[in-house]
């Protein structure tokens, strides 16, 4: 599949966005998780049906860009500016892990720009009785055990960290951006804002998620006006990589149920 890499200055800001684009059809934005941008099988499936825009979170090239972001609201505005720069009035949002939190925040603060939402193992809520795991306090082996249903399985092996300088640096910058909005506890008040999301939301969780336990799906659902939950077997936090087809089916099914150019309002 041809994936175009676009670099777009955001008018009125010192920031430049990096977006990977593929496919044709209605616009869908995919927000990546704390591990950074990677084009996966899920991306391929989405790009077969839609125009998929997969932006990198800010700071992707220079961490000092993060100085422009004091709060989650600044991050939401970054993505609204990006929609403007892309000429996209309304889009469907898909996000995994930290990216799920980003999608939920954009949908909560700018419901008028969002048509439908799919949150895959999203961060953003916190429960004292079942805390979100600290992915940044783990040895490589401990981290693998947290991220995957089967740490020794083919999906985990194919996505093992690449230990060469360029890849390490990219992962470091992606982690810096994720941490900027979630350190040390990924709770920036999303709980108070979820009710504002008018777009229909699909909550997609691996049953074996050890980073954000699937019990969080109920917390999201309780506060979302319109949501449905899909639990995926044989999958951990990286559910979209361990079970790409099940997740793609669930996302495409959800996004296809309504017009993506109409706001959910």
């Amino acid at each position, binding site marked *: 599949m041809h994936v175009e890499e676009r670099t777009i200055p955001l008018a009125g800001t010192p920031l430049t966005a990096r977006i990977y684009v593929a496919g044709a059809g209605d616009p869908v934005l995919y927000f990546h998780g704390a591990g950074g941008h990677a084009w996966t099988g899920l991306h391929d499936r989405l790009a077969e049906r839609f125009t998929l825009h997969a932006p990198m979170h800010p*700071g992707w090239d*220079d*961490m*000092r860009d*993060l*100085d422009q972001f*004091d709060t989650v609201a600044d991050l939401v505005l970054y993505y609204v500016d990006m929609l403007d720069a892309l000429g996209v009035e309304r889009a469907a949002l898909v996000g995994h892990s930290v990216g799920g939190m980003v999608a939920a925040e954009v949908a909560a603060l700018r419901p008028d720009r969002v048509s439908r939402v799919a949150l895959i193992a999203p961060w953003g809520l916190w429960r004292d009785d079942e805390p979100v795991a600290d992915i*940044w*306090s*783990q*040895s490589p082996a401990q981290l693998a055990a947290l991220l995957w249903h089967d740490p020794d399985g083919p999906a985990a092996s194919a996505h093992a960290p690449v230990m060469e*300088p360029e890849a*390490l*640096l990219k992962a*470091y*910058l992606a*982690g*810096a*951006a*994720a*941490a*900027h909005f979630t*350190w*040390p*506890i990924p709770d920036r008040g999303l709980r108070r804002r979820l009710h504002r999301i008018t777009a229909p939301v699909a909550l997609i969780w691996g049953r074996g998620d050890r980073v954000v336990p699937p019990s969080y799906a109920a917390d999201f659902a309780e506060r979302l006006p319109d949501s449905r939950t899909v639990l995926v077997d044989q999958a951990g936090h990286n559910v979209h990589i361990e079970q790409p087809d099940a997740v793609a089916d669930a996302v495409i099914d959800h996004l296809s149920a309504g017009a993506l150019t109409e706001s959910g309002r």
Partner: protein
Amino acid sequence: MKCIFFPLNPYRELPADFEERYESVYVTPPNDELCDPARAGQFYNWTLDEYEHAARLGLDGVGINEHHQNAYGYFNSPNLFAAALARSTTDTALVLLGNTLALYNPALRVAEDIAVLDTISGGRIVAGMPVGTPMDTCFVYGVIPSEVRPRFNEARELILQAWTRPGPFHFNGRFTKLRYVNPWPKPLQKPHPPIWLAGGGSLETFELAADQDYTYSFLNFNGYQFAKNTMDQFWDTIERKGKDDNPYRAGFFQQIVVADTDAEAERLYLEHIQYFYRKCLHIPPYMFAAPGYTTRRSADFQIRRSAAAAAVRQAVAEGTWGNYIDNGIVIAGSPDTVAERLTEAVKGLRIGHLMASLQIGSMPHDLTLHNISMFAEKVMPRVRDLWDADGWQDHWWPSGAR
């Protein structure tokens, strides 16, 4: 050269199997299991006695650092110890390395504490400004990694203004918004106490030291041989910025133990050195890698330097006397041996401020006093004048200290 007694104040009685049973000496060693407040208090008092002993024997300064939830150094607030030492010493420099500025908001409190200490001590305060480890800043105090350095810079700016501008004035920063900055009192030293940067070798900190004419202290436990690359980088930065190569621009932490003979040094100190390197540096690598704590440039530099870091870990892990000595991790032996190696270290790294670590790991109180005495009486006189012939002046020494 200035000699500064610089202990870390470790918990001196960790269990023998500590490093097998626990993940880390820093951040997470469970307090109720490992830290008896009565013993902790005893160790604090020993450390204070050791400071006073060093001051009486004529060391130029005493150094106090800042770490949190850390069994190898649990001073927490260096200002508390400086307050006690301001009263019990008379002409010794009190070198604070804290305060870790990014932890305090508003950092006005740091400006106030140091000003108070400066007045009580008669102008003997060095205002150290370390950026702080990722463990202290990100993991313990919860500072967002990408905000550590911006918060540090803003706090440093606020403190400098608080000390030098007539109050009251306003300060509108990114993290700090104050209508009335007007600390009572201002420091005794004018324009302000000397500022010492300290750290683990970030390029940005070298540049800040060069640009602002601050002195920089490399606080690293691996000894002078492994420090050579980093300090060369520091001096390259100083040269590139067009500054002179005054050795007092640089400080360095070195473990030092002295006995009557080389063999006696091994007999007296080896187990305590092993305690330090096996238990006190038992820190999982991820804690050094909080995402966003170092800039892209420094992260890139460190990623590419990781082979060198692995060599250090290997050398330290072996834990034999020969290994500590041959790699310069510890300078140890008779006064002759120590003076010779120390001269080599100081000249090689071009160091004006020696942070002499004379209490290591589990070293008990009496042995520590002995080591301080041996160093002060038999080594210090032979290394103190190392830079005198070149005529260098220490522009970074507090004006009220000897």
